[in-house]
């Protein structure tokens, strides 16, 4: 870029990025306009947190003796991109709770294809609310079931 043009570009770009990024914050409607970002990281500390998780009930048609809580599974947290896996599950649960069927359907496809690797899985999606400090001490939370689903790719039969 020519130096004269850069002289005008830089302050305008910084102003655009700052204002545009802040407008993507959820308080302004949360319009997610990649790659703008509000940088609103850890700006809230609610005493009541929400966690969405999936509980696996059956794999390949066989009921599990003990259901598997995905968010409580060490292997899930050790996945190469845990953050993405947890993110898609969280957004899937939030879309179910909000009653947004189209978004929930799209996120379900992503969760089943990229996170649940078995071909046939029966699972339920749960919402947990808790106070982080109390849960840490007592392990207690409140739980609501948001729905039960079957993943069946039709493969392996």
């Amino acid at each position, binding site marked *: 870029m020519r130096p004269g043009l850069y002289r005008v570009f830089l302050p305008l770009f910084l102003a655009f990025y700052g204002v545009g990024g802040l407008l993507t914050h959820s308080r302004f409607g949360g319009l997610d306009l990649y790659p703008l970002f509000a940088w609103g990281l850890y700006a809230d*500390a609610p005493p009541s*947190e929400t966690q969405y998780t999936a509980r696996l009930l059956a794999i390949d048609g066989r009921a599990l003796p003990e259901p598997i809580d995905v968010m409580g599974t060490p292997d899930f947290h050790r996945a190469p991109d845990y953050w993405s896996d947890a993110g898609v599950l969280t957004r899937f649960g939030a879309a179910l709770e909000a009653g947004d069927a189209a978004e929930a359907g799209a996120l379900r496809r992503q969760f089943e294809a990229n996170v649940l690797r078995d071909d046939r899985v029966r699972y339920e999606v749960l919402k947990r609310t808790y106070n982080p400090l109390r849960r840490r001490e007592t392990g207690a939370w409140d739980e609501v079931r948001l729905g039960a689903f079957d993943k069946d790719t039709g493969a392996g039969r």
Partner: protein
Amino acid sequence: MPISLTHLVDRFWALAPDPEGGLGLEATHLAARTLVRAYYLGQLLIAFQHLALWNHYVGLRSIRPLWPVFWASGDSGRDAMLILLLFAAGSCAAAFFPDRIAARAAAFFGCLEFSAFVSSFGTVRHVHHLMLLTSFLFVLIPVRSGRAARDEDRRAYLRGVWGVQCAALLTYSMAGFVKLMTGAWHLATGQGGVLTPAAMALHVANSGIRFGIDAPLADLAIRARILGLPIYLVVLYLELFALPIAFRPRLHRPWGVALVLMHLGISLTLNLFFLSSLFIVGLLLLASPFAPATPGWRAAAGELPLLGRFVRRFAPAPASL
């Protein structure tokens, strides 16, 4: 009297530090060119880190592509492999030839494709945003290859590097601004929030739950919760006033040290490893070509945002002979 755009642009650049720094134009320019090459070497390392996870990326199937990767499909791993190679190859090219605009553009393009690709599986990966922003601005650095650099070209190059510092620091100021506004709103409406003593302990405890394991210093941070608010206020200060630091070269290195320590603290208490952010802000500030060789603690403290006036008043720098 109406304020024109030209007037605002002139004011902005009038506040910018002297491109010659305290080292002289040639030495500052040389330091800046070394910084740019080191940046791309760091981007290459990050690309390699992800290339090592190729088996994971090629196994991703259901994609909702963001606009930069509209062409990608999740049907095969071919697109994932291509994107990983674009990221690594572009970073390689820029690390080898940082003066070539085509190489820097390739590095940005690879970074954009990769960042958009990994954000196309249900959640945007904000951890790559700082690398994306800085990689974009590095493309725009004015460089005339094939000719001996004249002084004016060197100054233009240095302004370009300073622009990248500004953008990186702006992101921290935005983070601080959102924390301050949200915290003030929650305090005013009686909803607790980040400006209350329990905030840090709540964050640390919740992070342990979300990640399934406590961070190394989580227990300590929760036990010492009385320190939570003072620590949070220091973080807020560091973040909120990050952008003004770009205009105060004497504070580049001290602020770089503080932000690196902040990232380390976040990693050890919240399990959040912003690897690329730590590298980028560390490099841009600790190796800032504009920072004086010896800042002088009293003079540096005198330039601190908000607090500097008290330092200047109660501990004035000795008068030079």
